[in-house]
């Protein structure tokens, strides 16, 4: 008796959970699309910056900037960890925290000083649990990080790097490769490597991080023949002075966008399997419930028959 009621109750609660996980999956899908669109819209800027850098490189400018120069002695290493504000997204937060803590232990062997900053409530509590001191925390970044907020962090890092307070900046985040592949990675952002890569393979006209449609690269190569003589105001070097911090800010922003997209995908996948699991559970609970009900009915009939026989 009690068993049947319990089974029914359990089945009901699993049904409710399935409803919730399915809704979360749908929300994550919608947010993923939005985050993906934002990430796609952001590539315009990187493409144009790349174009300017190529034009600068062609004009024979010596590419040098304090952000590009590695400091001779690495004493202080800053680290920025990008996690989610919310859970229920599978191994997303855990894997970023894992690579971050691992890198942090490696850093500790080489350098003593340096700040660790964590974005996302999940990462903050994970670091607190691990007993890792964290200097700065951010929890304002959701599925649509704003450039303004990211630029503030970037400017701070630039100041710290140029004034020599820090000798290297690492960022731990989930890199978005494709919608079926995201890798938790730790990348060194400063000294900045983006520009050198661009200038060395300027002929190929694209970086691995920017996906250019194949027809547009042909078009730009013909365009380039037409426009060879740019006028630089104030000078090529003066423009470079601004290009490097600008592309650093864009690069950091890309990290935040990647993290946001990856989070939504992770949540989508986690919720999808949760919904499926709940479905399986309901199936097996229903089977047990039906069996229990049937055996109860059978037992009652037997009792009635037994009673009739006793009377007769």
């Amino acid at each position, binding site marked *: 008796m009690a068993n049947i009621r319990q089974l029914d109750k359990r089945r009901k609660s699993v049904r409710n959970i399935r409803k919730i996980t399915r809704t979360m999956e749908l929300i994550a899908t919608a947010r993923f699309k939005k985050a993906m669109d*934002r990430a796609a*819209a*952001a590539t*315009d*800027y990187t493409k*144009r*910056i790349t*174009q*300017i850098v190529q*034009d*600068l490189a062609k004009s024979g400018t010596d590419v040098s900037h*304090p952000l590009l120069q590695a400091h001779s002695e690495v004493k202080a290493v800053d680290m920025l960890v990008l996690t989610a504000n919310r859970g229920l997204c599978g191994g997303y937060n855990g894997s970023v925290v894992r690579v971050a803590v691992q890198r942090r232990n490696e850093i500790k062997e080489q350098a003593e000083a340096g700040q660790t900053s964590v974005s996302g409530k999940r990462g903050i509590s994970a670091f607190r649990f691990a007993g890792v001191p964290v200097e700065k925390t951010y929890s304002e970044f959701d599925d649509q990080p*704003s*450039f*303004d907020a990211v*630029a503030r962090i970037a400017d701070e890092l*630039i*100041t710290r790097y*140029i*004034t*020599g307070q820090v000798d290297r900046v690492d960022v731990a985040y989930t890199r978005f490769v494709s919608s079926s592949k995201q890798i938790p990675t730790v990348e060194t952002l400063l000294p900045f490597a983006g520009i050198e890569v661009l200038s060395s393979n300027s002929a190929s006209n694209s970086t691995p991080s920017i996906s250019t449609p194949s027809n547009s690269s042909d078009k730009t190569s013909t*365009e380039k023949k*037409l*426009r060879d*003589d*740019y*006028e*630089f*105001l*104030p000078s090529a070097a*003066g*423009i470079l*002075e*601004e*290009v490097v911090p*600008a592309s650093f*800010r*864009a690069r950091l*922003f890309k990290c935040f966008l990647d993290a946001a997209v990856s989070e939504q995908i992770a949540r989508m996948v986690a919720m999808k399997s949760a919904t499926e699991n709940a479905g399986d559970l309901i199936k097996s609970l229903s089977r047990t419930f039906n069996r229990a009900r049937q055996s109860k009915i059978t037992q009652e009939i037997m009792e009635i028959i037994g009673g009739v026989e006793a009377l007769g």
Partner: protein
Amino acid sequence: MSSGTGVHCVVVTPEKTELDTHCDSLILPLFDGELGILPGRSPMVGRLGFGLMKLKGAGKVEEWFVDGGFVQVTREAVYILTDRLLKPNQIDRATAEADLKKASEIRPATPEAFALRDRALAQARAKLRVGT
């Protein structure tokens, strides 16, 4: 930029392409003063300062605040790369004032730090000047 009658003006921020429009001419705040661009301008790359960008077209002048960045004039279009594109009334004066105060309190020791401070000062002052 084409030698046609108008200027194709594209404003790109790190978030998205904010503006893609045609106008008769435009005035940009460069690092050391204003630069006017008319149809058929020869190719150039310039560093932008902080200030008002004016788009002239159809008897109207449209004003935008640009927050540093670059301008690239090509044969096809004028590309403006800036961190933020705001209408003058969207500027947050309180934040700008706080930034100005913070920047003026910096005591730079190296030439690089000086440059960083000057940039922050110029940015905050331009915002206060343009903001309504």
